[in-house]
């Protein structure tokens, strides 16, 4: 028996996720910013972190986007093996983006890469970007992960020599790039795989909470020791969390991807079932 997923449910759930993601951060993200603001000694850094916390409160109260860069729409779909989807998911999610663009409202950000002409509704070829995973079960879990340009523009993939140290590469690149990515940052890091797999691993790493493993914590303390600080104006909080995902790679390769995420680490999820959808 398969669970039939209704197109209208997916459209509504996706539009709702995209809207919620813009207005309030996941509680764990806000907690980390709050903790950083208590720890900072640098007055400029403290002022920046306090401004972020004030901004989050205002966005929630007024139900407006946290940041005017409402991003390029990215969706992550975890599709249960027992689900049956008899419609075009791409067009359904594009419809959801158009709905959210009018309702929230979102800033029209999607442009043709050559002509730079704005499509006006945040959709177009390849947008929204949809990542899928097949999992156990009979529901579809959808996560909206709008990605602003400030931090995405700083992201990088390096095809290293296997003799290189991938963590040294990350520290060097973060040292160069963090200030313009609206720190304090969350870093998704993909090590291994192919060129594109490393980037996908890095993006997926950002969809989950940071890890507190020895590699992540070591890297976090090296990055915070650089003193770049909130908004690049100095301080002890340059990154608030890191997650590293790895895959096996060719014996002659060492791909390393660093996906930068600004402090406004926005995402929201919903579960779509045969009988409707719920906030998750």
């Amino acid at each position, binding site marked *: 028996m398969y669970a039939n997923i209704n197109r209208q449910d997916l459209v509504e759930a996706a539009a709702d996720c995209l809207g919620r993601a813009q207005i309030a951060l996941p509680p764990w993200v806000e907690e980390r910013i709050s903790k950083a603001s208590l720890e900072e000694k640098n007055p*400029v850094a403290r*002022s*920046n972190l306090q*401004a*972020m916390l*004030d*901004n989050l409160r*205002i*966005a929630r109260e*007024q139900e*407006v*986007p*946290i*940041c*005017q*860069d*409402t991003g390029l729409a990215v969706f992550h779909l975890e599709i249960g093996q027992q689900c049956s989807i008899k419609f075009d998911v791409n067009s359904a999610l594009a419809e959801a983006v158009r709905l959210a663009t009018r309702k929230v*409202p*979102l*800033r*029209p*950000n999607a442009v043709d890469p050559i002509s730079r002409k*704005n499509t006006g509704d945040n959709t177009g070829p390849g947008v929204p970007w949809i990542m899928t995973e097949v999992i156990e079960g009979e529901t579809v879990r959808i996560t909206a992960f709008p990605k602003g340009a*400030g931090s995405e*523009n700083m992201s990088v993939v390096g095809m290293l020599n296997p003799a290189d140290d991938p963590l040294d590469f990350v*520290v*060097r690149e973060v*040292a160069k790039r963090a*200030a*313009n990515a*609206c720190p304090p940052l969350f870093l998704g890091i993909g090590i291994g795989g192919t060129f594109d797999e490393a980037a996908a691993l890095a993006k997926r790493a950002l969809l989950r909470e940071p890890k507190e493993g020895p590699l992540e914590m070591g890297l976090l303390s*090296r990055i915070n*020791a*650089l*003193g*770049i*600080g*909130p*908004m*690049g*104006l*100095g301080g002890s909080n340059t990154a608030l969390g890191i997650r590293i995902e790895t895959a096996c790679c060719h014996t002659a390769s060492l791909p390393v991807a660093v996906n930068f995420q*600004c*402090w*406004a680490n926005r995402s929201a999820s919903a579960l779509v079932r045969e009988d409707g959808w719920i906030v998750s």
Partner: protein
Amino acid sequence: MDRILRTPAKLEDILDLEAGDFVSLSGRIYTARDKAYAAIRERGAPVDLVGSAIYHCGPIMQDGRVICAGPTTSSRLTRYTEEMLDRGVRIFIGKGGLPGDSGLIRGRAVYLAYTGGCGAAAARQLKAVRSHLPDLGMAEAVWELEAIDMGPMIVAMDAHGRDIYEEVRSSVRTRLAGKTDSD
């Protein structure tokens, strides 16, 4: 205690500020980013920029209201700094600074950092007056806005040659080099 700035700003208002000062600003400001800067170079400025404040921002506007309007990355716009100074701009507002331009703005302008991502807070401090170059679209048009106690902002690059971003970058380079030496 915040320093208070008003536009149009005089040279002495600017010279009075030092890197690290907290500032709030009131008066007319103009948004301009990538396409607006290019259009101003090509077609001329749609408004008088003498003593003005330029805000590197692509806002969300709806029904004549500012919904969300935080700063965008200023480093993309450094190729136009000199031209904007020649047009009389005294205050640049954005995030990330104007890398390499502290010599250019010395004695002429200041750079104020508004906390990136704080668009909801900024919108409460800004009222829409009118749009210029609306053909560039919502994010890229020049929006004339009335700022009311816009802040807190930090003087990140002052008119005396100090640039906090550059000071941080330089200290990061030293720390990176130190690490390599001891490895």
